[in-house]
């Protein structure tokens, strides 16, 4: 025991001595030391930054974005962007970086995207100058870009990068801040079990900035492990699944998950697979992810292919009806009857819209009609559907009607519509512009042949009565057995 103790003590002493030596050597090579406070609130003094080790793919991406690729001497195993980074010396895993490997590269500074606090400590004890980065929000990400710039002597470049990124964020924000409908988004980082973002994370922020609402906005943690049922119960309008090396999933998988098929997002085909690296890595590319997300949630705001604009001349309509044809993903005809003034009519076909009433299913796309001069506009809206859409949504053809979204009452109102089953279209007269949608009642499941209606309470009561009776009989039997003498040993 005592020899062991002595050996251990010696080893610790030796380690300390080595650590002291390596710190000393770094201190010697420093030129203009700068002291900063990193994301964990630690004061770190960094001398030169000619040799940099980046642990965490987001750090590598930031360094390259600042034009510091040449100074990077080592990266962690997951750093695969930009492609040049792959050729760099790999130090080890991100979770448990090997201090010896890092020391061997003789870095002036190590940027560690934490990660594992224990590993941070190990790196420090090995005498390395470690700057810990742990962004939580998009602003943190930009702050870290500036921090890295200050340390590496590239404050202007960092400022320029951070400013241009935040300008892009502001641009998205500006476009989406006045959207009438914010779809509820479930963004999946992992399954099974479902993992998603909660408030306080940049993922949550990205959903909100992109004009959506996080389906898990009430969660108490930044990263949420949850259950299938929780996702089903929240009825998200859009599902964004982040796929990549960490999470491999296909659109087919979603249909196979039990209970998921009736989630509005699946029913209307609003399931999207996006590159996880644009979302889970808190680096500059997060803005690309945000832009992509916003385009998906609000294609109408980003010049999506399904936006159609038509000029309207009021005088022309006095002479007769004018027909406008929209041939997007869904065929739509507008027969303008009258207009009070000249203007521009915008027709947007989108999959994201207000959720259908509980007893109705959406067929095809939402049709968002807007006009610069909406007063006194009247038109006949004809929505064409395809037979396979009915099959997909399991909707009875006879029940199809056009619904209009009542913004004030936040509900769908059925319009008096004319169905043409032979021509596969429905028509309705429209006096106020809003969201419109073709909806129908789901076909009832075929009743089982033996089904005869016994009210539930009768069944429950009789079963309860049966259980009580069985219990009484059992108790009596036990008592009788005890009276008779019990089981022999």
């Amino acid at each position, binding site marked *: 025991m005592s020899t062991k103790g002595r050996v251990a003590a010696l080893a610790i002493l030796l380690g300390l001595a080595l650590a002291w030596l390596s710190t000393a050597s770094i201190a010697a090579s420093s030129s203009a030391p700068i002291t900063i406070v990193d994301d964990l609130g630690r004061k770190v003094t960094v001398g030169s930054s000619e040799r940099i080790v980046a642990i965490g793919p987001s750090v590598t991406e930031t360094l390259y974005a600042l034009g510091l690729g040449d100074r990077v001497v080592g990266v962690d*195993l*997951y750093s695969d962007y930009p492609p040049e980074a792959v050729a760099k010396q790999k130090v080890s*895993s991100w*979770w*448990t970086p090997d201090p010896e490997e890092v020391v061997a590269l003789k870095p002036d500074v190590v940027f560690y995207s934490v990660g594992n606090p224990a590993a941070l400590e190990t790196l420090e004890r090995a005498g390395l100058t470690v700057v810990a980065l742990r962004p939580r929000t998009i602003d943190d990400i930009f702050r870290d870009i500036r921090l890295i710039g200050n340390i590496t002597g590239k404050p202007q470049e960092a400022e320029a990068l951070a400013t241009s990124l935040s300008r892009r964020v502001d641009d998205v924000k500006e476009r989406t801040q006045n959207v009438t409908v914010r779809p509820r988004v479930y963004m999946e980082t*992992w*399954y*099974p*079990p479902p*993992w998603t973002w*909660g408030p306080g994370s940049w993922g949550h922020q990205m959903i909100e900035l992109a004009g959506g609402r996080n389906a*898990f906005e*009430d*969660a*108490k*943690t930044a990263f*949420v*492990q*949850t*259950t*299938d*049922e*929780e996702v*089903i*119960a*929240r009825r998200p309008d859009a599902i964004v699944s982040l796929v*990549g*090396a*960490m999470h*491999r*999933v*296909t659109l087919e*998988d979603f249909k*196979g998950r*039990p*209970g998921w098929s*009736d989630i509005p997002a699946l029913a209307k085909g609003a399931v999207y697979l996006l590159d996880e690296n644009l979302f889970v890595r808190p680096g500059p590319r997060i803005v690309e992810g945000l832009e992509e997300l916003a385009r998906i949630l609000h294609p109408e705001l980003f010049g999506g292919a399904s936006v159609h604009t038509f000029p309207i001349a009021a005088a022309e309509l006095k002479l007769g009806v004018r027909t406008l044809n929209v041939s997007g993903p869904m065929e739509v005809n507008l027969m303008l009857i009258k207009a009070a003034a000249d203007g521009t009519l915008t027709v947007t076909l989108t999959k994201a819209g207000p959720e259908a009433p509980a007893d109705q299913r959406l067929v095809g796309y939402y049709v968002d009609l807007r006009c610069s001069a909406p007063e006194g506009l009247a038109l006949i809206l004809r929505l064409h559907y395809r037979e396979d859409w009915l099959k997909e949504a399991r909707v009875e053809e006879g029940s199809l009607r056009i619904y209009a979204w009542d913004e004030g009452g936040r509900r769908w109102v059925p319009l008096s519509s004319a169905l043409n089953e032979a021509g596969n279209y429905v028509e309705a007269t429209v006096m106020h512009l809003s969201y419109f949608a073709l909806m129908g009642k789901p076909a009832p*499941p075929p009743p*089982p042949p*033996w*089904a*005869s*209606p*016994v*009210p*539930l*309470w009768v*069944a*429950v009561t009789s*079963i309860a009565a049966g259980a009580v009776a069985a219990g009484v009989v059992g108790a009596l039997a*036990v008592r009788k*057995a*005890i009276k008779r*003498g*019990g*089981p022999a*040993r």
Partner: protein
Amino acid sequence: MTVDRGGGVEAKRLKLVAKWATVISILSICLILSMSLSSMVGPMPMGVEKVLGIMLRQVPVLGGLLDRCWTPQEEVVVVQLRLPRALSAALVGMALSAAGVVFQGVFRNPMADPYVLGVASGAGFGASLAIVLGLGLPSLGLIYAVPVMASMGSLLTMALVYLIARAGGGLPILRLLLAGIAVSSFFSSMTSLMLAVAGEELHAAFSWLFGGFPAVRWELVYVAAPVILACLILIYAYARDLNVMLLGEEQAKQLGVEVEDVKRRLMVSASIVTAAAVSVSGIIGFVGLIVPHMMRLLVGPDHRILIPSSALAGATLLTLCDVAARTMLRPVVLPTGVVTSMLGAPFFTYLLARSERLRRGEAA
């Protein structure tokens, strides 16, 4: 005189049987209640009558007589998500507690738990291997690779421990324990190795090692339930021998118990039970260690009542802990293993303190 004494013994035994019947029926009712609670509670708001109706609807003949007052989605949620979760929590709790009783009894060691022979680390290794190799991906249609590899890992460990311990003939307890520690630490380090090279699958491996019921499916229950129930019955058949073995192996031999045979069969079936449980839920601590002690405080050391009551209590405890894990921080779900210790440890401490007070009260 003799007749009287005989009558006294007889009356005592009757009392005991009555007491046992009461204990078992109370515990069964608790289990049924907790499982019902587990299937009633969830994020989808559904009335009690709906859940009951959905469950009755699944009964072959009677189900057809009911009229539906719920949506197909609600039915899927109850039948495909809640019921397998409640059932597997109960099964795992049952398996771990009964295995705990067996290991504590055979080793005559209060610190023994179902993982004493390294089953957990073997399972952990199997599971993390499957995860790292990417076998557990849903898109490959191999979602059962992880549980299958976990149970294979645990059975492999068990066989290794057994072979090492048997090397000198017989099956001495000390060698079993030491072999268990050796093999277990070997596989733990292999698991750490897997985690070190895991890369991006790290997340999945960790979530498995924490233990819980994140992705239970009926198929898992179908496979695990018969194995667990059959082994439990086998274990119960040796309850009386376990009682005798509490006196020591020598004594037991003199009293006519085939100690080696009994030990081998008990240990193999307890390990298989544990392996089945681990493959369903990952590694859940505490239940297998504490529930047997809890029940020993409540019903006494006789294995004939200790085994079934531990199984029922363990099932109830784990089901309730799973409900707590799902509801405490909604919508965040905690790993069930965390909740088990968090709720179970204070309760056990309370029982311990109470029994101490009782004993002192009796002495005074």
